[in-house]
């Protein structure tokens, strides 16, 4: 993949380079040819002009060409050197340097290329026409030499550039290889690996940084999952250990009736706690998979709160805690059993954290379009450091206390899910030593405007 990218880049580079070199060479060769031709033309024209003036006409009407003048001695026969021919304007041949030259050669005064020769025809003295020509072979061979030189130089340049290009592309791609190696080496056991950014060039540095951030997020998610699994296993193992130890102790030898009873009571408690954890885990598993069907029907929150408060009345009075319910009838569109679970979690929590003689207040109000339920207690409150985490699964603010109450640390996480799946939210305000206040806000259902809406069901995804 990388190799092919390198080759591809280099192939494109070579193609462009060859095109540029070829264009340049073609232009240069054309220029050389043109300038050679111009020089030749100038020489031929000069010679032709000399020749034109070297023609004499005697009294007998005979033309004479005097080749003794300067610049005219060079005419040779049968060679590549310049040749000449002189005609009368009537087309009669006067003189020629080569017997092969015949009348067909003649034309009007001009400069032309003909049969591999360059020829200049000019009008001479006494109405004669003068042709001076020269083979283009010399010019051609000069040109070929130039082409050859260009080709050689171009070839060398191409090889050097490609070599350099190969090296540079390789160097530029090396960080990609490193990134690839790092990604390849990452596994569950060493999620901490990161791409070395200091050694990476700018653009790739950006890529590496983005990748590293993605790795960070992955690692975090993975660690969260691992922690969750460890917490879940811890919450299940603890009551299981109790169950097994208690049963083993009971069975070790015959026990008194009272001992059996108390053992079974302890086992029951442990089993109930395990049930709580398992049910919580199941709720989350199904919520995460989006497999929980939420009923939607008008629910009077005030009724639910009163129901929950009276249901928890005996636990509260056992602990010497008073539950106060105040507020207005308030309708929401929701799942009554889930909403009851939410309220029950909050109120039970408040009761368990309240000292004897404390008060738990459940207040319902309707500020604006939302409907607000506040559950406050007179307990020890929540530490500022715990506050951002208390809605996390299995998070325990104060282990000793919540262990006492038998909770697994899932209640608030479930409450948050219920509030959010109803389009609302939940928050906690607390200061150490001054109690805690949990506030749930849910969209209110305007019963009078909507009439009694039918029961609908809806799938919700956990946050």
């Amino acid at each position, binding site marked *: 993949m990388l190799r092919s990218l390198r080759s591809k880049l280099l192939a494109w580079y070579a193609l462009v380079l060859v095109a540029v070199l070829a264009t340049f060479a073609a232009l240069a060769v054309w220029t050389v040819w043109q300038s050679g031709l111009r020089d030749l033309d100038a020489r031929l024209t000069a010679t032709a002009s000399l020749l034109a003036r070297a023609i004499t006409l005697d009294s007998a009407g005979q033309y004479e060409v005097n080749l003794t003048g300067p610049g005219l001695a060079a005419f040779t026969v049968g060679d590549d050197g310049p040749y000449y021919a002189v005609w009368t304007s009537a087309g009669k041949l006067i003189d020629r340097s080569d017997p092969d030259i015949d009348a067909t050669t003649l034309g009007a005064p001009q400069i032309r290329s003909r049969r591999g020769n360059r020829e200049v025809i000019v009008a001479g003295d006494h109405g004669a026409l003068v042709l001076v020509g020269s083979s283009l072979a010399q010019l051609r061979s000069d040109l070929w030499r130039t082409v050859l030189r260009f080709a050689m130089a171009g070839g060398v340049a191409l090889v050097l550039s490609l070599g350099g290009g190969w090296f540079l592309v390789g160097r530029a791609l090396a960080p990609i290889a490193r990134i690839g190696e790092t990604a390849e080496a990452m596994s569950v056991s060493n999620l901490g690996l990161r791409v070395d950014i200091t050694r990476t060039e700018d653009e790739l540095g950006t890529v590496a940084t983005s990748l590293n951030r993605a790795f960070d997020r992955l690692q975090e998610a993975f660690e969260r999952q691992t922690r969750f699994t*460890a917490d879940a*296993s*811890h919450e299940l*193992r*603890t009551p*299981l*250990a*109790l*169950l*097994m*130890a*208690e049963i*083993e*102790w009971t069975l*070790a030898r015959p026990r008194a009736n009272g001992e059996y009873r108390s053992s079974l009571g*302890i086992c029951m*408690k*442990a089993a109930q706690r395990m049930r709580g954890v398992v049910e919580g885990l199941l709720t989350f598993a199904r919520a995460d998979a989006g497999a929980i069907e939420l009923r939607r029907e008008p629910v009077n929150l005030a009724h639910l709160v009163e129901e929950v408060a009276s249901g928890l009345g005996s636990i509260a009075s056992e602990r010497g805690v008073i539950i106060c319910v105040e507020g207005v009838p308030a309708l929401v569109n929701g799942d009554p059993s889930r909403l009851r679970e939410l309220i029950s979690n909050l109120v039970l929590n408040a009761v368990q954290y309240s000292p004897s003689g404390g008060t738990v207040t459940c207040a319902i109000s309707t500020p604006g379009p939302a409907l607000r339920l506040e559950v406050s207690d007179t307990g020890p409150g929540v530490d500022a450091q715990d506050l951002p985490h208390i809605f996390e699964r299995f998070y325990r603010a*104060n*282990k*000793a206390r919540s*262990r*006492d109450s038998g909770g697994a640390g899932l209640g608030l996480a479930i409450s948050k899910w219920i509030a959010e799946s109803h389009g609302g939210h939940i928050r906690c305000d607390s200061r150490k030593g001054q109690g805690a206040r949990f506030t749930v806000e849910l969209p209110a259902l305007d019963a009078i405007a909507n009439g009694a809406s039918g029961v609908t069901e809806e799938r919700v995804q956990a946050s």
Partner: protein
Amino acid sequence: MRVLVVEDEPDLAATLRKTLAESGFSVDVAADGEEALWQAEAIAYDVIVLDLMIPIVDGWEVVRRIRARGNRSPVLVLTARDTTTDKVRALDSGADDYLTKPFTLDELLARIRALIRRAAGSPAPVIRLGEVEIETSARRVTRSGAEVDLAPKEYALLEFLALHRGALVTRSMLYEHIYDDRDDSMSNLAEVYVSSVRRKLGHGLIRTCRGVGYIIDA
């Protein structure tokens, strides 16, 4: 033998307490790390059974701190945390053994006995003192092959002296290791147990160092 159980789960702590007590251990319970540190400072426990996830000071830190103070009590970590990292961390902090929840009581007791033997420098499960043999796993004592019936406290006293044979065991050491904070002990009870052990196993076995304590000669 005196054991400190550090466990924040009250029901499990209670079960461990009654189990260990039935096996002849004197048991103290601490519900959090701070209490555990305080208790371990006050008493030289023969074994500390330690949960890791405990309030205030966690179990790893408890081991680290008691080892830093030079406490040599064997520490058995009993926890629901079962990853290799947790085990390595606990053992490297100074713990001696690691058992994950859920566990069987038999295994827990066997491990505690092994830790006590190793700490006393006599890893063999049977201690021979002349014609007397003490089988620590079954808490059985024989004299010339015949089984001798000892009361739990008598056995505890004999085992403690036997594990420390050749060394002087003071009365206060005896009280510390064969009673727990629930026993209403009276200082002269040690003499009562010593004399009844002597009556059952022979008078030459335990030597009295007057006014100081007792010794079983090596």
